[in-house]
């Protein structure tokens, strides 16, 4: 280590000073911010056109500023129902998938057992398989067994594709854990359940939370798999997709704005708790 230090110190100072001013140094940040701007531009358009005083069905040309759509947000009963469905389904799916996925991630991260390879393969196939196929296959099952499609088939479908994401996230978190902590707890006399709830679970909690957040976002946003298995039930993305034929009403922009603000809120909360933890 010391030889390396000496070599580093021996580097001429001026070269390092000028490194800051090299034009190449700014290329990366500029590119990064450009990409972020590109990713955010449709959101900006969506937010802006939520204030558009449009008189026709088309919400394309700017016709003036209004807060009308914020006031009349719940004027389209089907849209409100669809949004409610999306939110309730997302909560149910998040709970179920996070529990099952955490258990799976724990098992995969902690133990070496005979089914390990097969489990990894199963999860990989589930994550890698295209949504069209996942949705269509499940639909085939429901059709063959005569199960009518509706609210609960949506829940089943969404849990199905979410478990693997939580499991992978929790397993990744487990990979970085110090096994000595658990052993220490056991040496101190803690039983397996106590060890789990007071040592393991808090340590993997960031991974569990990350997985839960991922499932929440995937569930609210899901279109393809849900559309195959929804029957007549509408969720928010399904309703919006149907509405693109006749002109998307500005209420959709307003709801999208609220969902986006919710995401911003979550980000701020996460940032604030991180800072507190670092302090």
């Amino acid at each position: 280590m010391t030889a390396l230090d000496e070599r580093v110190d021996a580097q001429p100072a001026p070269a390092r000073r000028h490194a800051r001013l090299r034009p190449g140094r700014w290329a990366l940040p500029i590119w990064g911010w450009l990409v972020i701007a590109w990713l955010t531009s449709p959101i900006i358009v969506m937010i802006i056109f939520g204030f558009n005083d449009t008189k026709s069905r088309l919400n394309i040309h700017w016709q003036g500023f209004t807060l009308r759509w914020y006031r009349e947000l719940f004027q389209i009963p089907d849209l409100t129902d669809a949004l409610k469905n999306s939110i309730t389904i997302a909560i149910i799916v998040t709970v179920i998938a996070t529990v099952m996925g955490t258990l799976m991630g724990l098992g995969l991260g902690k133990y070496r057992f005979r089914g390990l390879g097969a489990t990894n393969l199963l999860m990989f196939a589930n994550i890698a398989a295209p949504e069209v196929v996942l949705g269509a296959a499940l639909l085939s099952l429901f059709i063959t067994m005569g199960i009518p499609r509706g609210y609960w088939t949506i829940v089943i479908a969404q849990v199905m594709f979410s478990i693997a994401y939580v499991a992978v996230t929790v397993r990744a978190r487990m990979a970085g854990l110090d096994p000595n902590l658990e052993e220490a707890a056991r040496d101190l006399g803690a039983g397996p359940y106590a060890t789990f709830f007071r040592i393991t679970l808090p340590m993997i909690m960031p991974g569990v939370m990350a997985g839960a957040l991922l499932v929440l976002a995937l569930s609210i946003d899901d279109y393809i798999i849900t559309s195959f298995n929804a029957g007549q039930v509408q969720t928010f993305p399904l309703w919006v997709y149907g509405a693109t034929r006749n002109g998307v009403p500005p209420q959709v922009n307003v709801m999208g704005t609220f969902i986006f603000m919710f995401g911003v809120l979550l980000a701020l909360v996460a940032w604030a708790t991180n800072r507190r933890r670092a302090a």
Partner: protein
Amino acid sequence: MRRARLGARLAPYFLVLPGWLWLVLFFVVPTFVMLSMSTQTGDIVAGFKQTFHWQNYSNGWDQYHVQFVRSIIYGLIATGLCVAIGYPVACWIAFRGGAHKSSLLFLLLLPFFVSFVIRTQAWSTILSDDGIVLSRLKDWGIVGADYHVLATPTAVIWGLTYNFLPFMVLPIYVALERLDPALLEASSDLYGSRAATFMKVVLPLSMPGVFAGVVLTFVPAAADYVNAFILGGSHTTMIGNIIQTEYFTNQDYPTASALSFLLMVGLLLGVFAYARAVGTENALEMAAAQ
């Protein structure tokens, strides 16, 4: 003592059991049901019967191989663009993010909280022939007055790249973030130039991330149909659109199942082949690193 050890031995099986059950019931079994449905014949009025009619596959390919190939091509182009655009972004956040890494990641992922149908629809507005972007370009004479980007393959690939970029950036970021900075310092001492450091150290070590990103991007992009529906035109139909039509408009479940199965097998075979090409080397590297 023996009970505890037996419990410890059985623990992993109990842990993964719920997830296994769910996935087997609602992922593995349906795949076989779909396979079984793909060889049936009939229609919605008379019913469908299992006749092992494997011609459904050859008929499906005959009728729709153009859309199949087109979907693969669109997927590959979109994935390539995602790598080109996303890799520098991942580098930026991983190496230059410093204390702001999570915030930058959040900024990157924030737009994806909004439903992707809405985002794609917004692109349809932005890119419309007389919309914000194109009208300016036409005024400045950069493009002809007849130019349009919607209803072309460009628009569909644009939408695919846009919608799947985070799936590429995240895995690459994770791989880069875990690189030991001492490794980079040592390499810059050895090789002297940043370019060499990148080519000989950073790039190879980030390959697992690139691999994961490619898998998570290419498969959904090739199978997507929403982008083609909202942004596409004639001669941009993808195989996902066809499958959706066969299920819901024609109720031709056997053909639809055959096409789905073909798509899945094709994509997964490609991914596994890619995994072998990349994976074997990685296994050796991993063994060496440990």
